[in-house]
């Protein structure tokens, strides 16, 4: 998933809308429409079925591209290839560290944009969208030329720098979208009751915006973990998880790639379900 358009995803997921049904269209047309929609959904899942299925494959050669036979071996030894495991660990590290930095910078901007009126607000707003609209290959190339100009060695640090750069905008947009429509008079109430601005921030403002920050952080983490194109330009000889996968396509694709991908999918699914249940519980009180 690229960093573009993530705010749209957030908007789509966050919209609390009652079911809306349009009735009265002819039954045949309706049926055809539903079948087409079902087929498109199936198309979205087709590669996922293949990925999960091939995590149980027992490939004879170097590549895990054609079905050879069922085995549980790959799942029994998910960390068989140290290089793959190391790459995944590095990616988790990069995702966590870059997200932590970007969360601070992005959240501050989001709060300023929603809560404060200041000169140049719309300009800042527009500027923040720009990194989300540049093609990744150009952003990667531009960063590489900067590092070349500065004669910085590319590696872990430059990967972090690049990831923070594309995460800030996206976090600011996500947090901002979640902050709209809050009851900010609570802050005034807290001040009126004698709380200091700092106390008000930690006791009132922060608890209000925490869910938005958590959501932005999780999506930023996912984006960082998945980023290939920008990372490819600024990584040097450092190998992240997507870079390992890309190198594997040229040399040898072990089924453990599918095992780890399936595991990540399952973990995301569980997190998604837990998050939804938690939110529902909060809303219902």
């Amino acid at each position, binding site marked *: 998933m690229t960093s573009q358009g993530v705010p749209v995803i957030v908007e789509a997921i966050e919209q609390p809308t009652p079911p809306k049904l349009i009735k009265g269209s002819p039954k045949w047309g309706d049926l055809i429409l539903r079948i087409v929609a079902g087929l498109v959904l199936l198309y979205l899942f087709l590669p996922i079925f293949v990925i999960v299925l091939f995590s149980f494959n027992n490939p004879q050669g170097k590549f895990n591209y054609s079905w050879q036979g069922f085995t549980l071996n790959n799942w029994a030894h998910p960390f068989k290839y140290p290089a793959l495991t190391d790459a995944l660990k590095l990616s988790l590290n990069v995702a966590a560290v870059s997200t932590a930095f970007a969360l601070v910078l992005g959240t501050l901007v989001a709060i300023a944009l929603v809560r404060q009126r200041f000169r140049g607000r719309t300009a800042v707003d527009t500027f923040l969208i720009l990194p989300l609209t540049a093609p990744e290959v150009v952003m990667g190339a531009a960063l590489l030329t900067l590092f070349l100009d500065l004669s910085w060695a590319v590696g872990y640090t430059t990967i972090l720098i690049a990831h923070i750069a594309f995460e*800030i905008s996206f976090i600011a947009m996500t947090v901002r979208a979640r902050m709209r429509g809050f009851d900010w008079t609570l802050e005034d109430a807290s001040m009126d009751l004698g709380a200091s601005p700092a106390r008000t921030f930690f006791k009132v403002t922060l608890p209000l915006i925490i869910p938005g920050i958590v959501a932005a952080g999780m999506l930023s983490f996912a984006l960082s973990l998945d980023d290939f194109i920008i990372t490819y330009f600024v990584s040097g000889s450092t190998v992240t998880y997507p870079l390992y996968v890309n190198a594997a396509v040229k040399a040898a694709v072990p089924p453990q790639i599918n095992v780890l991908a399936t595991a990540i999918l399952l973990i995301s699914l569980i997190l998604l379900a837990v998050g939804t249940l938690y939110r529902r519980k909060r809303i219902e009180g």
Partner: protein
Amino acid sequence: MAGLASSSRQRSKIAPYLMILPALVYLGIFFVVPFFSLARTSLSSSGGSVYLPTLSFNWDFGNYVDAFSQYQDQIIRSFTYALAATALCLLLAFPLAYVIAFKAGRYKNLILGLVILPFFVTFLIRTIAWKTILADDGWVVSALGAVGLLPSEGRLLSTSWAVIGGLTYNWIIFMILPLYVSLEKIDPRLIEASKDLYSSNRRGFSRVILPLSMPGVLAGSLLVFIPASGDFINADYLGSTQTTMIGNVIQKQFLVVKDYPAAAALSMVLMAIILVGVLLYTRALGTEDLV
């Protein structure tokens, strides 16, 4: 009390700037400055030896001439593929977004979750899966061959269609979601009103639903077109040497050949064409509420 109010007002004058400053400085250094580096590199000429290449900035516009003359095919191909993928995304996403918005009832959130789920698998691994699906000995090729849609010895992998298909698949979510958001906002009473005024279903669709979904169409097509035109993974994994895109050339020139000026000039060209295209497109559709 008055002192407190005025001090807090004064504080709030600088406070927003202090809050936006760190991010703006960061993006200034690592987003704006890199584009100046890129522009500078694109106007430099490379010299020195193979072992110790040097770049000297001398307004060398020759890199741009070379970019157009040498890689004209890749430039045209990139935008053709990206356009085809955007059109396919629109065609596939519309029925699904429509059903989620209007017909899904209480399963709406479940289906939305299902739509997003595949994108939790790394983009590269999804593309590798398409390699398996479209393989010469795969069931898709044999099924298409059996019904005569594909000649014997016909292939899917390594064709333009495989690359366009991959681009479509990898970015379709960015078409589905904005479309869904704009369809969702349509007041169903408007559709009922069109029925009450004796418009046919088709007319109701073309006169009410389609115009009101335009912001979604616009946002979705930009979100698909921009990353698709710069992509090199799909052409690399699913295509052949006959299907290379501008992204492949940029990547190769930067990281393999290390001809930085040529690669930088190509990046600038890609960026410029996208900017012009986006401007023309937004003007043509006449929608300003993009984000």
